[in-house]
């Protein structure tokens, strides 16, 4: 520590500052915009013009706002999904794969399982399929972790690639639309499989799934014993076992629920947007979900707000790609910077910087441990 911060030391505060819990995320986003603006300026662009175009594109018109809500839907559901796992300190970074599995299984129902069913039967069946597909893809790493101790970060990540390749194989091979030209995809679903949308925009029922899921999780985390338990297990595995909490079963349940929500996001994307499974269905929603969850402090209410903000960033990025010819990648770049500031700023809520009169003798204090 001494050489990183000089004579300054971090001292842990007895309890995290509550004001900081709101101020730090807000300040992180602001500072990130400043830092991102510097990079944009160094690259020879006018940051104010770029941000202005992003803001106008994402929120400045009815269509822009609707597109932001369209992108909020998958970010909200996947963000809630990974947050469930993060609460237990299970690093599910497989939201992307679970999203695809939900989409794949829902597509199977729409095209082959119940192709002739009416909307009242088909849509609930597809919802169940999406939940199930995602849950299954979350249970694989969950079981490997619970019974064999395999690191869930790596397994969930690897399964992302497997799921994406599986979807690619399906849309190029067995499920390929024989009449399609160009962009590979399955045939369109029957109109009964489409989620109701707010015409003339593309905002669909999936947004309601997301808001409902947020409310359910809020109750789960705040008002139920189980929600309390996963928090305890996240804090300390040993404390949980001491209290007789069933860790293994909880890992399986948490990973299944986490995956199910991500799978529901995939289902609502195929049923709400294109009514088909296609290549590159997700521009990395499952990864952005990690930021949504973290910046939202793993709190359902926070996640709703952050999902909307990051969706606006994505839509803004697409807009400047179209109108100014700048890469949409400015959005993930800003997301990364937001996280940097948040991680740094988070320390301020938990620690206090204290100046020590003189550097202590490392060897002497260390020997006492």
């Amino acid at each position, binding site marked *: *520590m*001494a*050489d*990183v*911060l000089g004579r300054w030391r*971090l001292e*842990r505060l007895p309890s995290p500052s509550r004001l900081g819990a709101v101020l730090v995320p807000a300040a992180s986003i602001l500072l990130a915009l400043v830092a991102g603006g510097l*990079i*944009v300026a160094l*690259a020879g662009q006018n940051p104010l013009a770029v941000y202005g175009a992003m803001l106008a594109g994402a929120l400045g018109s009815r269509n822009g706002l609707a597109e932001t809500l369209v992108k909020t839907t998958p970010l909200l559901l996947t963000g809630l999904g990974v947050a469930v796992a993060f609460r237990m300190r299970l*690093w599910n*970074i497989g939201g992307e794969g679970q999203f695809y599995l939900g989409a794949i299984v829902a597509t199977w129902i729409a095209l082959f399982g119940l192709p002739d069913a009416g909307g009242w039967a088909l849509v609930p069946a597809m919802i169940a399929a999406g939940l199930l597909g995602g849950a299954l893809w979350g249970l694989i790493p969950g079981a*490997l972790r619970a019974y*064999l*101790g*395999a*690191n869930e*970060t*790596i*397994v969930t*990540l*690897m*399964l992302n*690639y*497997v799921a994406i*390749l*599986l979807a*690619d*194989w399906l849309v*190029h*091979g067995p499920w390929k639309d024989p009449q399609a030209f160009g962009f590979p995809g399955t045939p369109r679903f029957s109109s009964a499989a489409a989620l109701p949308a707010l015409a003339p925009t593309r905002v669909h029922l999936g947004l309601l799934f997301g808001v409902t899921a947020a409310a359910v999780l809020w109750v789960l985390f705040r008002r139920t014993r189980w929600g309390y338990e996963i928090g305890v297990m996240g804090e300390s595995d040993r404390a949980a076992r001491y209290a007789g909490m069933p860790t293994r079963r909880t890992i399986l349940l948490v990973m299944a629920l986490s995956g199910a929500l991500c799978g529901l996001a995939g289902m609502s994307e195929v049923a709400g947007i294109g009514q088909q499974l296609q290549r590159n269905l997700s521009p990395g929603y499952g*990864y952005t979900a*990690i*930021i949504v969850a*973290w910046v939202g402090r793993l709190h359902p209410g926070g996640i709703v707000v952050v999902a909307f903000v990051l969706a606006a960033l994505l839509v803004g990025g697409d807009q400047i790609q179209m109108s100014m010819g*700048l*890469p949409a*990648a*400015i*959005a*993930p*770049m*800003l*997301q*990364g*910077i937001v*996280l*940097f500031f948040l*991680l*740094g700023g*988070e*320390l301020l809520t938990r620690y206090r910087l204290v100046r020590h009169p003189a550097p202590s003798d*490392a*060897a002497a*204090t*260390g*020997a*006492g*441990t």
Partner: protein
Amino acid sequence: MEQVFTVGFLVAVLAAAIAAGSAILFACLGELLAERSGVLNLGVEGMMLIGALAGVAATLGTGNPWLGAGAAILAGAGMASIHALLAVGLKANQVVSGLALTLFGGGLSAFLGQRYVGLPLPASFGREPVPLLADLPLFGPILFRQDPLVYLSYALVPALWFFVYKTRAGLRLRALGERPEAADAMGIDVDRLRASYVVVGGALAGLGGAAISLGTNPGWTEGMTAGRGWIAVALVIFAGWNPARAALGAWLFGGVEAGQFRLQGAGVDISPFFLGMLPYLFTIVVLVLATRPGARHRLGAPAALGLPYQREERG
């Protein structure tokens, strides 16, 4: 089928495996050093991308790929220093900080790299057969008709193995990851040394990026590392934190990558999508086998991996 698996075919696949594996190998060795010191850095993919771009930009500016490789090393180290500051200096969550680095690197490289897309390089690392050795039967064409960065990786593997297991500094490195409190008691500045290894790890990841953008696929395209940084992270576990096994793993992955295209070229009827899944499924299998209950210690995971070191909490 028979004419596919000729000696000539296998030699070509193995040579391509080593060429394709070298980028993963550099990144994997870098991550291995950081993890040995107790710091998990999931930002490898982002550091590789920035390295790949810096290599292209510097080579375009100077015409010299060696200066490009140098720029890639510096860029990777610069990226890693963000992780060192947050995850080591400020004790932030290592998983989230690493993910942020990958996101940032991917976005920044795409943003800054837009003007370099598709530009042909004035020079890149071409194959340079080693005199005499290149004429050896079998080994010559497989090992010694590669580009200079591949030869550098040959030297780096035994050097790092020797460093980790046979030197005093290597002993300190292992102490950092196994028992930081003991290292502290020995008078080692845990955070400072950990930060240094994270930065060195980033430098190697940057070089890994350059091995792609100046070696196997000269030029810049957005997201050109295509998940190799993540494979490098998984390979560290496969390798049991041992540099020699990291080389085997990296070449194995290179072989899957190279063999995939060649099998298709030879008309073998397996969907390329399934072949593409193999490295990832393979990683999961290896991870599971290596981390079975009871196997963890033998595997050699540093005991303090991922845990920030804080003296007062352990006192």
